[in-house]
């Protein structure tokens, strides 16, 4: 059985099946990205000044990345042109030239993805921010992932009804602490759980037994009610357990899973309690920028952030820069005979400034704004700061701030959860990236395994390349929209 119009177009519609199919598919893709673009507009227009995280200006977020984005735009356009030439070569039955163009297209895709990785890597690993409880924000680097709690655990108390305790994921499975069950379902006390897998299987067995026992007891309970017993004994099956480690184990608690902690206890979101000794819950941070957009102007001088930084010169430098910018602003609007709009007063221009906290012994290296361009290459005092990031070498080493956890409202890298700009940036570019990879794989398939079909029916292969090329153009087009809204506007 053969499907008609697989290669030759149907006369009255002028289309072969795959071409019609890919146009329809692209229509649905337009709706997919259209939904995301509308979400972008909706989220950006919905930002409430002074309440929500301000939408960062593209340029200020990306700094050097605008160039990467621009290069990527050129790369993708070149590859779109390349795929047309590949198709033309096939139409001219020139296999060699087709190969060259097709590999060129795939190479462009590889370049595109590599540049993308550079951007992602920088955002995810080298840029962090901390919002303090008075809504002032410090931009910089959280060192060595110390946003985690460091805790010496001794016992873990958990329920048997739900999932495996989340704390197990924070333990090192290679150096799994040997646990002994100290309290638990009947007959389980004293059981030794030496490996993670032993723990898991014991947990699942106990869970199953728990529910079995529960079913039996409930049956008894219901029967007693049905037979009219005055005060039936309530259902009571022990559903929790405590395990104790032979030696205290190191716990690196990731903050998202933890709902609260004190000197002796860590409470996990899933109701599991770990007892032991807190080593440290401080966050160690190298500050590069202070962002006061969410703090009222009259409260900025008393902000918590200056206590945390503990360096008067840094504070002075912030407000010097602020008044400088304010003067510029006033004179700009004076010339036009206008007053400075409220929005500008709360905006990024006045409220985000570079701040440098010099390490002890380097007081002289303290910098005012952009004056200090000739400082020596950054030499960090500890291994922790090695490779600290982003060309901050110009002001000498920074002092590491120790920030108590209770003063932190929100913190993280510039990953998707940092704010809505980052969320939509990562979601859209990643989805676009998946399209690039998918399209490139299909085109690679057409050139690596295409020879057989080429010899049999070159027109069929040309059709496939045409269809793949249409998709490739679409991917290109999406990027042409993404680049301005993510990098420039």
């Amino acid at each position, binding site marked *: *059985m053969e*499907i*008609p*119009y697989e290669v*030759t*177009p*149907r*006369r*009255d*519609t002028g*289309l*072969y*099946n*795959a071409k*019609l*199919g890919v146009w*329809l*598919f692209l*229509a*649905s893709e337009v*709706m*997919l990205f259209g*939904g995301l673009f509308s*979400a972008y507009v*909706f*989220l950006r227009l*919905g930002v*409430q000044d002074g*309440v*929500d*995280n301000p939408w960062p200006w593209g340029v200020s977020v990306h700094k050097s990345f605008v160039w990467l984005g621009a290069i990527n735009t050129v790369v993708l356009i070149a590859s779109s042109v390349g795929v047309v030439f590949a198709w033309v070569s096939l139409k001219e039955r020139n296999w060699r030239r087709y190969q060259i163009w097709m590999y060129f297209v795939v190479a462009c895709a590889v370049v595109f993805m590599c540049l993308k990785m550079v951007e992602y890597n920088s955002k995810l690993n080298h840029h962090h921010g901390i919002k303090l409880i008075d809504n002032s924000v410090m931009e910089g680097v959280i060192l060595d992932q110390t946003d985690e709690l460091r805790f010496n655990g001794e016992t873990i108390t958990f329920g048997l*009804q*739900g*999932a*495996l305790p*989340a*704390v*197990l994921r924070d333990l090192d499975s290679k150096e799994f602490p040997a646990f002994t069950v100290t309290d638990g379902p009947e007959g389980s006390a004293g059981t030794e759980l030496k490996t993670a897998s032993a723990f898991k299987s014991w947990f699942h067995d106990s869970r199953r037994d728990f*529910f079995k026992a*529960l*079913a039996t007891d*409930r049956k008894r*309970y*219901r029967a007693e009610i049905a037979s009219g017993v005055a005060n039936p004994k*309530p259902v009571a099956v022990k559903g929790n357990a405590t395990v104790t480690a032979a030696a205290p184990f190191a716990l690196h608690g990731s*903050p998202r*899973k933890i*709902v609260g902690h004190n000197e002796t206890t860590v409470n*996990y*979101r*899933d109701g599991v309690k770990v007892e032991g000794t807190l080593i440290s819950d401080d966050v160690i941070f190298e500050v590069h920028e202070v962002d006061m957009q969410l703090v009222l102007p009259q409260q900025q001088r008393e902000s918590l952030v200056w206590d945390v930084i503990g360096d008067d010169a840094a504070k002075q430098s912030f407000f010097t820069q602020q008044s400088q910018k304010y003067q510029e602003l006033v004179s700009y609007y004076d010339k036009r005979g206008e007053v400075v709009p409220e929005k500008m007063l709360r905006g990024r221009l006045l409220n985000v400034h570079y701040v440098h906290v010099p390490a002890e012994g380097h007081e002289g290296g303290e910098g005012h704004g952009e004056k200090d361009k000739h400082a020596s290459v950054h030499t960090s005092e500890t291994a922790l700061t090695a490779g600290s990031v982003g060309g901050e070498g110009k002001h000498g080493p920074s002092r590491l701030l120790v920030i108590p956890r209770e003063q932190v409202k*929100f913190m993280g890298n510039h990953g*998707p*959860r940092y704010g*809505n700009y*980052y*969320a939509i940036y*990562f*979601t859209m570019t990643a*989805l676009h990236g998946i399209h690039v990879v998918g399209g490139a794989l299909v085109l690679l398939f057409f050139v690596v395994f295409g020879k057989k079909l080429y010899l049999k029916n070159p027109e069929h292969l040309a059709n496939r390349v045409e269809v793949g090329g249409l998709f490739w153009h679409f991917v290109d087009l999406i990027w042409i929209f993404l680049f301005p809204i993510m990098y420039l506007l």
Partner: protein
Amino acid sequence: MSAAAEHTHAESHGEHDHHEHYEPFWRKYIFSTDHKVIGLQYGFTSLVFLAFGFFLMMVMRWSIAYPDRAVPLLADWPWFQAWLDDGGRVTGDLYNMFGAMHGTIMVFLGIVPLAFGAFGNYVTPLQIGAPDMAFPRLNMASYWLYLLGGALMFVSFFLPSGAAKAGWTNYSPLATTTDLQFGDLFWTGQTQWLVGMALLITSSLLGAVNFICTIINLRCRGMTWMRLPFFVWAMLVTGFLLLLAFPPLEVAAIMQLMDRLAGTSFFIPTGLNVSGMSFDAAGGGSPLLYQHLFWFLAHPEVYVLILPALAIVAEIIPCNTRKPLWGYKIMVYAVMVLGFLAFIVWAHHMYITGMGPAVSTFFQTTTVLISIPSVILITSLLISMWGGSIRFTVPMLFATAFIPMFGIGGLTGLPLAFSLPDLHLHDTYYVIGHFHYIVAPGTIFGLFAGIYHWFPKITGRMMSTRLGHLHFWPSLIFMNGIFAPMFFQGMAGFHRRAFDGGKAYEQISNQVFAEPNTFFANLAELLHVIPADAPLRMIDLNIVTSGSAWLLAVFQVPFIINIFISVFIGKKVTSDNPWDATTLEWATPTPPPHGNFITEPVAYRGPYEYSVPGAPKDFSPQFENDPSSIGENSAKVGEASTKQSSAH
């Protein structure tokens, strides 16, 4: 039957054997690319899911009718221990889970796959005279993606978190913050719902592309646009609805997945508190955005649910009234207008979200406009029966019942279209009654009709009429028993999400529906719903509804038996066209082989030429070139066929 069909049959076999090559079982029936096998796979899977969704609802109905009593039969099952309380009663969590999954399963895993996947796949290529779908392997992929998505949804019940619990609409931030206590966020029901939906959406998209391509490009010679059976038109419009409406939901699913797994705040507003604690997220997101994205799909989805059933009914009515479909062309235009308007009515689900009166006014207007094509469709079907000598076969019974049921569902929707009455009715049982009248006795009756109608083509045997009647009449009664009381409860103020059936709200639940010794009170007394001489209160209607639901389940047994036994002992059909119908699917051998038609089919005339004056029979099939039975729409055959044959 007709000489022509016998002729093609006889001549065919040589050629047929020639083309047939050996295919192993798994290739022929499991990983098949034949649209008919895929259609049957869709059919069976979706019927299983329909039964499962029905089961969930029956457990919920127990909790509503008897919130104080242990659930019978299920209280000792190990799985239920985590979700029932000590007395064996349904907990709020279980009710929420079953409610959310009932909606999801019925809509996305039950009715759409049955209507679009099963009937669309089996019937569409046959009706347009195509050998298969345009992309057979893509077709197989859509089925397996659907099955995978369904399997994930099903498996999520057995996770420690249970399945999704935030309603079938999965509104954020509730859906985002549910089940966050689990360490492994990926393997929670709420997340698996999103993953499952992403798979189902992908499956639907592939299906939609395939259907539209098939209908546009694979029509046989002479099958011009206005000779397409109405079913094919409905499939085309449905395909476009799925193609363009589903991607925004995919966006919503991706964004909610990011909210859950990557900690973004797309739908999380600033300053959100969950269980008295500040929620650890950047904030600044918009819950309203989720609702817009969701309903941009979910309103067109309503038409995806209803159009195939309506179109099946439109096939069955002319065949059984022996009259042409009244207003075929106007129905085609109406369905196109309906498809277009379906995209601009979505926010009528969101009147009470505070999106503003200007927006509400716009959507009120479009919502009222969309009732025009709907009424045109249903009225045309009604007029089609006027003056016909109707054969009340079992499919015709279901098709006939479809019209008033759909009518009730549609008319009760009018108050909901206006934002003012919607303030009162929103989220009450009135809404439940309204849309279930459309999808349960409406769509499902249409689908039953389709099963009874095309069963002889699929198996070569008729389904039992006696069992069919035993299925139809009780179903009709109990469907109304379930959904009619909901209107009264809803207007009285019963909220749809109360797992105790409204018991906690005495002022509402004690309102009297019928005074003692009136007809309804006596009837309820007779059925032991209320004691003697007591008024029938609103809350007592819960028992009526629940009882009807369980009885409805009982009377689906004849249908299941009918399907299975008729395959083996049903009356054999004596011809390829047992209903004396006119469309092309009846030109194929029974059951149709891989590749469908023995000789290349040609459409000589319009799809519904019944009782053409001067014709020898009361039906003139599209595939018979009999000059004596040429109807008004039969011209141009030669012209069209020569034009297209040159393209070959």
